[in-house]
């Protein structure tokens, strides 16, 4: 979708994306010539269609929580595990957390639980890169 400022015959530029509220996304566009601003307000169906593509309106620069290194960004919500499953029982070092972001979001809750269980059974107290390597070898990968 593109937006045109009719009076200037100039393509408008995305200025701001507000996170979905009750399923509606607010995307503000402005005309670089006359500074006129408009907002596109999506209905939940439109929001969902974009979300289902695994993309984020505004791309990588858009502010989102728990942003992923995976090119398919955070709009794809976790499945098979809600936020409860993500409750951290163990501290993860930044390096280990970064590795977890190499996984699709939907795969993280189960991986996290499995790795933490592996660590717990061995009396470990935190998840770092070394523990991940050990777990990887243990699980035969």
């Amino acid at each position, binding site marked *: *979708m*593109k*937006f*045109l400022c*009719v009076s200037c*015959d100039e*393509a*408008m*530029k*995305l*200025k701001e994306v507000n996170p*979905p509220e*009750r*399923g509606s996304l607010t*995307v503000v*566009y402005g005309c670089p010539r006359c500074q006129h601003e408009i907002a596109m307000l999506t209905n*939940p*169906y439109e*929001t*969902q*269609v*974009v*979300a*289902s*593509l*695994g*993309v*984020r*309106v*505004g*791309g990588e*620069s858009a502010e989102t929580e728990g942003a992923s290194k*995976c*090119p*398919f*960004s955070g709009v*794809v*919500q*976790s*499945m*098979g595990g809600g936020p409860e499953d993500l409750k951290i029982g163990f501290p993860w070092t930044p390096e280990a957390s970064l*590795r*977890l972001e*190499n*996984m*699709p979001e*939907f*795969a993280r809750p*189960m*991986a996290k639980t*499995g*790795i933490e269980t*592996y660590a717990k059974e061995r009396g470990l107290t935190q998840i770092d890169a070394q523990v*991940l*390597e050990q*777990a*990887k070898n243990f*699980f*035969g*990968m």
Partner: protein
Amino acid sequence: MKGYYDIVGDGGSDILEQVEAQQASIARSLSGVRNLLAVGSGKGGVGKSTLTMQLACALRELGHAVSILDADLNGPCQARLGTLQDRVLVPDDSGVPVPKTRNGIGVVSMGMVVPEPRAVEFESVASGSSHTWRATKEFTVLRELLACMNWGKLDYLLVDLPPGAERIVQYAELLGPAALFVLVTIPSDMSRGIVARSLDALAKTPNRILGYIENMDGYYCSDCGRVKPLFPVPSDVKLDLDCLGTVPFDPELAALCDRGGSLADSPGSFSWQPVQRIAEEVCRRASECAPYSKERR
């Protein structure tokens, strides 16, 4: 007044670029795959998933590096077939290594991501409308799995497709024009009829179909030691496609599968030889095709 194509770029929504980035990361991830072989049917319940695993074992026996992607998100069974349902996916620096069965076959399945008996669910902001977006989301999940796994160098990546004759075209588009197809049927009119539909749907794509496999072609009678017909009347429905081979129903195989075993562990089994011959035929035909990694894009 300017039109859509007069404007360069998308004004910052970046959606097209992100979709292209997804495609590029899949191409990168699959760059070591020589043959991508989609195993489909259209019809459910023809033993396609079990046959896919057995075919993978036979290809492995021939010395090939083989992995399986279970594309059936709603009825994943490859994790269980490979006794990998309790396997934890552990990410490393560059992605996620592919877990392997004890026969050395890599398996990626939603069964490793969603614990049984949970159904695959997607969160949505549009309640009660999943029919409008669920298929899109399922393909997004598959693209993510394809892109994020470290497939490495593979001679064969088998993709176990879910049922649905019409959707087979969408899988062909997802996997690209160089993906090869094998269709699985059983000797019934209904199954062959649905496979004929899949064949018709695939005819509109540039993808090559190597042939079909007739599964459950008779059963082994342990009393008389012969293979007897499972379906009393042979099917009249002709498929305009080469038959790669037939595989009889094998109770031994069913029991083995429940234990996560493979026919390769039981070389004396009477259905192992047919599967091996099919694997050889698949190799022969695939070798006539351009490598997947080169032709994909």
